[in-house]
């Protein structure tokens, strides 16, 4: 059929000359990835936290403690007097302030050690989660140095992944799955618009077979979804610092197309219920919006209550997100890959069948 390529070209022209479509398929996901990448981006591994050290004791023990603390790369020590350091903490210039009280060294020699005073702002989450554990570890090391003992129990933590996954690694594949969903479902708007404008009816008066029309549309849609995914993966690496598994990229492309086809089929199905372009938007929103929040894109599935599990299991984005996460960053599987692919294929077949049955030229 020599109308196939001209139809794909028509779709391309219609798409690139439509600023709104360009925004939603390219600029919007790029913005999303950009914002998440900057906010949640993989922290610099050499990151250090400003901590104030107030020495009110001049004993050798106190000096040794200061020496140990200063060797911790994660801590950027500033020495000062109590008043100015507490003031800096209040201003947010310090994560914590350690006060070594006077008589600290003497109390150790007496066998009744005085505790250090640690000031911090509990409303700062990273302080609680990151700085305090670092300090505890530092005190432990200092303790051993002062008492000259060897640790008995040590541990070497091995993670499942070559590199420990951070929030950004969890979010990025989900965002890419989200944009595949939007590209597929909202891509069906082109067909709704053609019907609304009676172009489909005009085409039905030509010998153009329906498969060529639909095939060209779906082909173009898949090219867009693939390019979108490539762009977003690259951005996830550059902006978010996500460690993408390069060897899985061909499989990721395959999953993108399978997921894209499933969502295009869902879009076509929904398109059968919309008379106009304007009418299609709310229908598509109602379907896609809950999936954003319940498919494990932003929140892990195991953080959700049990009663919502059946809903989650019925959402195709759950399976696409899981498959992409496994392939892209080696995320822990929620479902087996076979189940993910099987469910997506089932959505594709069922909804494409329904869409064909419900399809109207007018």
């Amino acid at each position, binding site marked *: 059929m*020599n*109308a196939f390529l*001209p*139809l794909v070209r*028509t779709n391309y*022209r*219609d798409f690139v*000359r*439509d600023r709104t479509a360009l925004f939603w398929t390219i600029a919007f996901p790029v913005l999303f990835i950009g914002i998440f990448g900057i906010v949640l981006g993989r922290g610099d591994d050499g990151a250090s936290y400003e901590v104030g050290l107030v020495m009110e004791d001049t004993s050798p023990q106190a000096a040794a403690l200061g020496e140990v603390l200063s060797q911790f790369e994660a801590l950027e020590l500033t020495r000062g007097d109590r008043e100015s350091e507490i003031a800096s903490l209040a201003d947010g210039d310090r994560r914590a302030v350690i006060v070594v009280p006077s008589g600290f060294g003497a109390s150790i020699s007496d066998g009744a050690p005085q505790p250090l005073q640690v000031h911090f702002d509990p409303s700062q989450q990273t302080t609680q989660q990151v700085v305090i554990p670092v300090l505890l570890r530092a005190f432990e090391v200092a303790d051993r140095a002062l008492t000259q003992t060897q640790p008995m129990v040590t541990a070497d933590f091995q993670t499942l992944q070559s590199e420990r996954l951070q929030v950004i690694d969890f979010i990025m594949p989900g965002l890419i799955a989200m944009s595949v969903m939007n590209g597929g479902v909202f891509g069906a708007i082109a067909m709704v618009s*053609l019907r609304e*404008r*009676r*172009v489909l*009816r*005009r*085409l*039905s*008066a*030509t*010998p*153009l*077979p329906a498969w060529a029309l639909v095939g060209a549309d779906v082909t173009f849609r898949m090219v867009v979804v693939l390019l979108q995914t490539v762009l977003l993966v690259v951005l996830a690496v550059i902006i978010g610092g996500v460690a993408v598994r390069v060897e899985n990229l061909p499989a990721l492309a395959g999953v993108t197309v399978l997921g894209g086809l499933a969502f295009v089929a869902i879009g076509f199905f929904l398109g059968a219920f919309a008379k106009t372009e304007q009418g299609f938007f709310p229908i598509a929103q109602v379907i896609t919006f809950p999936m954003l929040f319940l498919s494990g894109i932003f929140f892990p599935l195991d953080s959700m209550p049990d009663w919502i599990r059946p809903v989650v299991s019925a959402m195709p984005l759950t399976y696409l997100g899981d498959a992409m996460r496994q392939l892209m960053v080696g995320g822990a599987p929620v479902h087996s890959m076979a189940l993910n692919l099987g469910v997506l294929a089932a959505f594709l077949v069922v909804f494409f069948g329904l869409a064909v049955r419900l399809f109207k030229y007018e």
Partner: protein
Amino acid sequence: MPVIEVRDLRKAYGDLQAVDGVSFDVSEGEVFGMLGPNGAGKTTTVEILEGLRIRDSGDVRVLGLDPATSGREFKRLVGVQLQQVALYPRLRVHEVISLFGSFYEQQADADELIALMGLQDRRNARIAELSGGQAQRLSVALAVVNRPRLVFLDEPSTGMDPQARRNLWDTIEGFRASGMTVVLTTHYMEEAERLCDRVAVMDHGRIIALDSPRALVRASFDEDAIEFVSSDGLTVDDLSGLAAVTSATSQGSAHSIFSSDIPRTMGSLLDLAAERGAPLEGMRVRHATLEDVFLKLTGRTLRD
């Protein structure tokens, strides 16, 4: 052998009998018009002939095929122009013509068609930028992109200014000159009179008259018409009683009197008006038209 044969065609939408027993033939090389007001059943009839709608009953043969069952084989052979198609708004004129051309094995040259429809200046314009008349000309161009033997034009001059309409008429006469058969719906009687070899006058899903425009007029009117506006006092009965009057119609204050002897009728009309003190404005004498035929047959005007 006729290009189109229609026998007792019927089509209903729910309770509405849109086409109610229509029969006619169209011969090769003819420009065949379907004239009638909106809702008369013209478009439904034509869309059944185009293979876009399925009839309830009746026999239809177009180019020897049944459009309802012949599918793509049939669609290759005919050209179609539909009402109210808003083509891809972001495509350019020549791009749309090439796209439609790609659906057919046999296709006309895009630039030739653009020239034929007088769209040279708009070749690279986007569809959204075209005026109503230009978009209409493009849709006629698309109807002949496959060089069909038979072309259906559904109200092709809608939205055109008078000059563009005259140009379109020249183009359609060019189609006929090249041997194409044209089926045309319209509610402009002037268009039907100028273009059509034969006209089927439709109303309420039926053909109420079918002949050449001249024969239709002659069958209804041997006479010429006096037209005038009178705001006051003159009734159809008054006018029908004037000398040599064969019939009279009134639409509000606008009156038409058909007369077999214009001077005698005119004399008695002036006497009557003087007697009643009734004003006579915009008086003119003209030949009867298809519009008069339609009014006489249905009691309504084409644009009701």
